[in-house]
């Protein structure tokens, strides 16, 4: 494994019946980069994230994260190893408040079990205070601290997006997967999101970004992987991808690039 690579994917394939959602995907993601995965709808981007987070089991292939094999592990083990994600369609815990959602994000940062919780041991109360403080910090960072005690289902779409991002960050992951985080945002909001992603990278996190907004991708990514019908057709720095003829052919007709 390359010394500074945090994620290494080899020959990853996923079939759903006759559909080849992923076919021989390979990539090496260096630590501390923003690594974008692009491609038309149905290219297999979300399936790629699902394989990385244990949501679906790859048909073949290997995934190594920080030099440890991940394929076949259940999602919660992968989360413990340090991977967090957001979802293309928001998946918040709708009967909970904003703060509670982010506290669930802190789950791997705590250790209280059934006995500790039932007996309300002092260690449990200390941990609870620490987690609440951390959760509030993440809410502050995303400028939604004032909404902490609101039921999450009462918030507009845009704020829900932020809660989901805060929840993923609260896990303090090493690798953060963002599935179309700019969908539904206007230009100004997309700009803010770009700055946020860069500040997350500054902090030392590695970001895997699936995104249709090409100006965002080209602006903030260090490396871009292009998928088409599950097959990797190009990989390189943004400038090189923009000029790649196969990529241009795929996007021909759409003014995305």
């Amino acid at each position, binding site marked *: 494994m390359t010394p500074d690579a945090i994620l290494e994917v080899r020959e990853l394939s996923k079939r759903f019946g006759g559909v080849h959602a992923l076919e021989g995907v390979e990539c090496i993601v260096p630590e501390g980069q923003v690594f974008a995965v692009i491609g038309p709808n149905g290219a297999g981007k979300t399936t790629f994230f699902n394989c990385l987070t244990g949501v679906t089991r790859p048909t073949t292939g290997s995934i190594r994260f920080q030099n440890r094999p991940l394929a076949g592990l259940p999602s919660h083990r992968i989360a413990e190893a340090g991977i967090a994600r957001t979802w293309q369609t928001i998946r918040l815990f709708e009967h909970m408040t904003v703060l509670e959602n982010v506290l*669930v994000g802190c789950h791997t940062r705590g250790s209280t079990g*059934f006995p500790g919780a039932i007996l309300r041991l002092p260690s449990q109360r200390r941990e609870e205070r620490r987690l609440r403080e951390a959760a509030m910090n993440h809410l502050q960072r995303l400028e939604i601290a004032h909404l902490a005690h609101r039921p999450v289902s009462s918030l507009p779409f845009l704020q829900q997006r932020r809660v989901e991002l805060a929840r993923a960050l609260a896990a303090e992951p090493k690798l953060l997967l963002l599935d179309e985080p700019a969908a539904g945002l206007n230009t100004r909001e997309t700009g803010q999101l770009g700055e946020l992603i860069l500040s997350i990278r500054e902090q030392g996190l590695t970001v895997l970004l699936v995104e249709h907004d090409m100006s965002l991708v080209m602006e903030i990514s260090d490396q871009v992987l292009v998928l088409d019908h599950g097959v990797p057709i190009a990989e390189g720095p943004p400038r090189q991808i923009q000029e790649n003829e196969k990529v241009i052919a795929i996007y021909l007709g759409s003014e995305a690039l």
Partner: protein
Amino acid sequence: MGLKNLTGLVLLSLAVIVLPYALPDFYFKLIQIGIYALICIGLSLLLGYAGQISLGHAAFYALGAYTSAILTVRYGWSPWLAVWVGIGLTIILALAIGIPSLRLQGHYLAMATLAFGEIAFVVATAWVALTGGPSGFGHIPKWNVFGYRLVPPRADQAIFYFVWAAVILGLLVALNLINSRVGRALRAIHDGEQAADVLGIPTATYKIKIFVLSAAYASVAGSIYAHVSGYVNPGPFSVEHSILFITMVIVGGMRTVWGGVAGACLMGLLPELLADLEHWRFAIYGLILLIIMMFIPQGILLGVRDLIAWSLEKLPFRKADSPGETE
């Protein structure tokens, strides 16, 4: 735990203390209801916080009752020790049922517990040498609390206090659990299992543990029942009783453990309150349940709260200012 729950526990404790003096002809009806409330608290943890249904809680109730009865009558054990053996057996059986059925997605637990409930009832009826068969057996020793035997008829008040102390303790345990990292994880599982898993929550393990805890509540209730009534037979442990407990939880409201207590009280007392209506009472009883389930899906407890909040808002002198906080 939050001020609201603490206030609730204090108010409930005060109500329990004064009730035998305020309603001396009535309070002892709440002894059996308290035992049901204990089962319902455990069941509401399972239903409301893990989204799973058990149709076998009457069997765990039976396990506690028969274990206590057999160990104290046949082997002369102390009731205080027998309770723990009941809990131990319940944990083993609940794990044996829960592990295979809760590792799969879906409602396999309902089927597995239904089968368990039926089998337990048959065993209690047919294994005469162990359980006394359909006629059961009696002479079960009473609780001995601080050297004070809880013996009827004059000790109704002591028994009442004892049972409701157990209910309050059961509530305290449940509320502590809910308002913790564990409780949040359980609620997250109920709202979105995959999203919870991806955040590091081992969903199957949590569901198995909450099922075991919920079964242990029923087992303790069974032990208390055996020593309170002094007599056990299979009658109160049928699958219909498991369904009754679920109905109590749903009627009371399963998104809060207080709902288990409210549901047990309402459904336990309704037949009493309707007694004057003679044979119409079952029809009215059914109708009331139907209306509650159709029009107050959140259960009577939260339903009443919402009604109060709504009417306060309508009153001209009150400004709506309280920020809503969930249990």
